[in-house]
């Protein structure tokens, strides 16, 4: 636990440093593209946050001053598989964004989709020493959560307290200062493969950047694509990416579940490429221009010339009807949704008060996707685009940038995590000076 604390605390400290310096980069490492945005923070908010949330949902604090996207290389299923290639791609994106921002960035917050996220719900309860809940008590109850054995090859990515209860009053957002006899906490913990994180950290380090934070792309997509009442009442965000589709469930403005399906838009392209025997680049183009998931009678008559330049006349004059194309794409998209459905069912999504499903990510731009999704996932499906943030170029406002934009919000308004609270005194090593200090602070 201490290692994790240290690593995450180091990152949090980096983030604070970056905020003080005013410039931070965010890096969305995806399977089809790598996006880098450079944010400038204008210090403390110009608008008093007396009503809880500042203007523009508190986003007026930062501004995007540099944005760059590059074709992803060496990333599959949201995980790094060729480190040198990925490092070069990150370098390209970071350099272009720096050039646009005309400022040097040293700190970067990264997100990625893969690495097999797994969610755990933890709970802990402690009796309160003195009846008032202090920050130390919160730290104690979080430390008292019994952590499951998630395996040695895993690492905790997020550990967020989602609910507090004092005695029999549950659903408290912030228990500090309240009175009671027993404090209980529910925590959502997300673990991922350690190797994937280490690879990403190594790539970023090779680019002379400091890693100032890590986030799951499913989580940050949900932050940007779900509107406030969807986050409050219960909603799922499905980020249909290139190599993996992330899925996150929110309620009461907290993420309570995240998972990822290792199928994405690239697989659809591969299917088209294999089915029509065309190169991948052409298949991608056919998909983006004529792709769809719901065939109509009109589509039988609409022929697409898929061509080729082999020199074989018959091969180069091939045509395919749009219905056939849809026939290739639809099973794969259905498969993705079936997988997502399984995950949602396993997470108990149908017990939430509202069951809004938001599709975002690059692959959500397939025409008719929401119709197909509502058949598989439920009636309340909509297509989501990320929130608008200040200074974001028009080219980066599409659903494919939900993760990147969400990461901006994550950088500006990080959710309190387990490691943001002080380690309770009894968790320090026995002969630590910090333990003495902490004990003194608590008892006087």
């Amino acid at each position, binding site marked *: 636990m201490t290692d994790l604390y240290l690593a995450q605390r180091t990152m949090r400290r980096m983030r604070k440093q970056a905020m003080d310096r005013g410039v931070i980069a965010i890096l969305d490492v995806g399977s089809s593209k790598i996006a880098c945005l450079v944010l400038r923070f204008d210090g403390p908010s110009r608008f008093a946050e007396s009503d809880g949330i500042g203007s523009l949902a508190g986003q007026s604090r930062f501004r995007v001053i540099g944005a760059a996207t*590059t*074709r992803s290389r060496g990333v599959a299923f949201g995980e790094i598989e060729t480190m040198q290639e990925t490092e*070069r*791609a990150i*370098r*390209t994106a*970071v*350099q272009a964004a*720096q*050039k646009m921002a*005309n*400022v*040097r960035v040293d700190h970067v917050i990264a997100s990625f989709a893969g690495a097999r996220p797994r969610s755990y719900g933890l709970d802990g309860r402690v009796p309160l020493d003195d009846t008032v809940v202090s920050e130390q008590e919160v730290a104690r109850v979080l430390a008292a959560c019994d952590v499951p054995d998630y395996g040695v090859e895993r690492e905790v990515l997020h550990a967020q307290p989602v609910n507090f209860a004092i005695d029999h009053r549950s659903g408290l957002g912030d228990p500090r200062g309240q009175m009671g006899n027993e404090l209980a906490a529910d925590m959502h913990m997300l673990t991922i493969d350690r190797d994937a994180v280490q690879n990403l950290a190594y790539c970023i380090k090779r*680019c*002379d950047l400091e890693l100032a934070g890590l986030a799951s792309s499913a989580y940050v997509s949900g932050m940007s694509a779900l509107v406030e009442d969807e986050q409050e009442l219960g909603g799922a965000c499905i980020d249909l990416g290139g190599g993996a589709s992330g899925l996150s469930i929110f309620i009461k403005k907290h993420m309570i579940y995240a998972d990822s399906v290792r199928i994405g838009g690239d697989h659809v392209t591969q299917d088209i490429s294999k089915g029509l025997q065309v190169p991948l*680049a*052409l298949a*991608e*183009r*056919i998909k983006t*221009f*004529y792709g769809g998931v719901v065939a109509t009678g009109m589509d039988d008559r*609409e*022929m*697409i*010339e*898929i*061509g080729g330049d082999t020199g074989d006349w018959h091969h180069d004059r091939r*045509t395919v009807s*749009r219905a056939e194309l849809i026939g290739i794409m639809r099973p794969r998209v259905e498969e993705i949704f079936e997988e997502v459905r399984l995950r949602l069912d396993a997470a108990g999504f149908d017990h939430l008060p509202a069951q809004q499903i938001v599709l975002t990510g690059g692959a959500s731009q397939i025409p008719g996707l929401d119709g197909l999704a509502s058949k598989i996932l439920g009636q309340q499906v909509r297509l989501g685009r990320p929130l608008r943030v200040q200074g974001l170029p028009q080219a980066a406002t599409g659903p494919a940038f939900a993760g990147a934009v969400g990461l901006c919000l994550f950088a500006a308004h990080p959710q309190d995590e387990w490691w943001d609270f002080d380690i309770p005194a009894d968790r320090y090593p026995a002969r630590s000076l910090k333990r003495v200090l902490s004990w003194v602070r608590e008892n006087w």
Partner: protein
Amino acid sequence: MRQVTPPPVRPRDPAPSRVAYRMHRLWLTPMFRKMLRVGLPFLICFAATLWFLQSEQRRAAIVATYEDTRRAIEQRPEFMVNLMSVEGASPDLAGDIHTLVPVDFPISSFDMDLPAIRALIETLDPVAAAHLHIRPGGVLQVRIEERQAIVVWRSPTGLLSLDETGHPIHTLTLRTDRADLPLIAGDGADDAVPEALALIAAAEPLADRMRGLRRKGARRWDIALDRGQLIQLPETDPVPVLERLIALDKAQDMLARDITHIDLRNPRRPTLRLAGTAVEAMRRIKSIEAGEPQE
């Protein structure tokens, strides 16, 4: 029939090499940019100047040019002083000043050390104060406040005229050169000139008889009158004593009598010394009064 245009050739998106990436980041570092934009030109200028000044010859040339320019400006007619005019001094003193001041005109006003010249002029005895300034037109104007001779002092070394503070002004060869001035004599008389002046003023009724004042033992005054009469005054407060004597003289015409010394050194016990014949005459009168037989 829908055409699929072949996928466009993607714009080249090559990854920057590590070196290029690092150079770009370095270039974006504000400190580095500032150093390059301000520090480097400054350094180059500094180095160039150093290199230029390394040669002895060039340094000498620079110094010479500077000196020449400076000289040329100083020698402009606007700054030249052509003559000296002395005001407020007697012709003799003016001649002395002209010979004393070691300046050969014309000279640049930058080269003249006015305080030194002033100090030099003020070493002359008759000069109480000198005010120098350079008037437009290249004239060095010397305004002199001359000392006024008040008394003549017969000093052990010779005759001197003194001003009211006792400062010597001129050496005199003859007392008659300044017969209009009262005479004082004796060692240390020049230190007590104010007291002497007060005495002379008080002795105004005796002016036609007074020969002079003599300082005795550098502590008190004697007033010498004609007919060898001597008034010996006390050390302290001689003026009221003298006034008392004058009053006595007015009342009893005392000084007209045959008295050689009037000793007032102790004011409470004035003593007279009669001349020899007067003493005899007095004795005779006494004896007559006593009825002694006359021879």
